[in-house]
């Protein structure tokens, strides 16, 4: 499994209120949420984003509210992977639970600029800046999480493991 696209590069502590402001939380429709994704941080994001693009951000990405609408908006906007120096814990859980691939890699974040062409090989945990040729190894998911991802998310995983 591989993702490739241009990088949207953001700073640290990107919170879920700027990813999807609460004024749009009166719906759970994923497409409507996606149409306001990142609005208070980068009003041009929705216009520029293309299927497969990658968000690259510094530490504590997704801090704040537990709203799953945040990873859902990002995924539905077409983002194929979020790479960050670190993730806030609820966002980390939510992204895995809904099948939005995420990678923690501080070195890659330091080596990627806005608009760079980036590719990610999930099984190997390899991130490549295709624009500069630089390459990094990220920590692969622990086996438990890999199992969950191969089951296509938490709900399906639990159907197999717990309810049976």
């Amino acid at each position, binding site marked *: 499994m591989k993702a490739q696209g241009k990088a949207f590069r953001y700073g640290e502590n990107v919170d879920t209120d700027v990813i999807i402001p609460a004024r749009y939380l*009166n*719906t*759970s429709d994923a497409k409507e949420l996606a149409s306001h994704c990142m609005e208070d941080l980068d009003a041009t994001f929705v216009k520029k984003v293309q299927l497969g693009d990658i968000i690259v951000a510094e530490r504590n990405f997704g801090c704040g*509210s*537990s709203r*799953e609408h945040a990873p859902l908006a990002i995924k539905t906007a077409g983002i194929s992977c979020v790479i960050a120096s670190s993730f806030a814990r*609820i966002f980390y859980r939510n992204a895995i639970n809904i099948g939005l691939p995420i990678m923690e890699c501080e070195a890659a974040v330091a080596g990627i600029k806005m608009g760079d062409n980036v590719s990610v090989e999930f099984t190997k945990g390899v991130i490549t800046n295709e624009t500069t040729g630089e390459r990094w190894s990220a920590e692969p998911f622990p086996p438990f999480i890999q199992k969950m991802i191969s089951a296509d998310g*938490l709900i399906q995983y639990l159907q197999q493991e717990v309810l049976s």
Partner: protein
Amino acid sequence: MSMTMSQKILAAHANVDQVRPGQLIMADLDLVLGNDITSPVAIKEFAKFGIDAVFDTSKIALVPDHFTPNKDIKAAQQCKMMREFAYDKKIEHYFEIGQMGIEHALLPEQGLVNAGDLIIGADSHTCTYGALGAFSTGVGSTDMAAAMATGKAWFKVPSALCFNLTGKLPPWVSGKDLILHIIGMIGVDGALYKSMEFTGEGVASLNIDDRFTICNMAIEAGAKNGIFGVDGVAIAYLGAHCKRTPLVFQADEDAEYERTYDIDLATLRPTVAFPHLPDNTRTIDEVGQIKIDQVVIGSCTNGRISDLRIAAKILKGKKVNPTVRTIVFPATQEIYLQAMDEGLLKIFVQAGAVVSTPTCGPCLGGHMGILAEGERAVATTNRNFVGRMGHPQSEVYLASPAVAAASALTGYISNPESIEE
């Protein structure tokens, strides 16, 4: 191997003798919470299981508190979906408008939280219940859906930070100032993935409402949970609200903490978090002249009776500055009634403040107090991110009820010590 209090609760609910930091466990839950924003997403996910019944109709709480009383048609649709699910699945703890309060004040008050419980909620401030010696943490809607179906959730066992408290808080300094001080010290990701355990002889002087406030904002330091040991103060609260016998877990004497912070409560000052992060703190002495347009007193952080009493003490017999819109929202109907009985609501109205029904509304920029471009608010809430209370170019300053009330009187962020009684 020795364990922290949080680790012991997790071990007990995973039916194992020992857990260690980093270990992945599947654990049994005592309570699963959702609100009118997170539940609709969870209900859609729950439907994918293809099962009719929830795991236990008495261990799920559904609280329509965010965009209620319904702020618009879309919010009304979301609430309707949640209400129909609650009736259809025979959820015992669904709180209609009239019984509804802000979830993290309501659940302990209704006796749904016990010491030793393991609780998840699809709301990040679920960590509030650590004040009563429960392990509680915020999750997303899919986790909530899975928990409603199975009664279980997966956890990565957290390591812990220890906050050793000594001394007593000075007058006009509260639990809010302590937690803002801590977040300012360790940063918004200073406790990422970890437990924050509060201990030491200074704990005894913190009332239960202060402890709720402190645990409530553990998430603002990135923590998985915040927790206090169970002492007489917690037992007294539980005795008055919860019918179950408290299950008391104590950290081992040699429990391992990644770091211990010693804090003398007597040295703390009223503290304000400047925009746009809760760790951007300054003491009241360093604030300078900040003109404000709105004051919000309430929320799951500071909408409890002690908070309202402090605000009323400052506002009694005075008028708020006519340029400051002052909004007070008691967190639950019971707190509302108590404030009425004690004459606090009259003090607020006579001072020129408005008193709202319980709602999360203004805290997250939902309704009932949205800021326009360039406006500033002092709020006793928990987050001051960009656009949190309205326009992306508005500003929120986080503070205690005492600072908020004093600021309402002057029109500037003010020190409660400077207000004459």
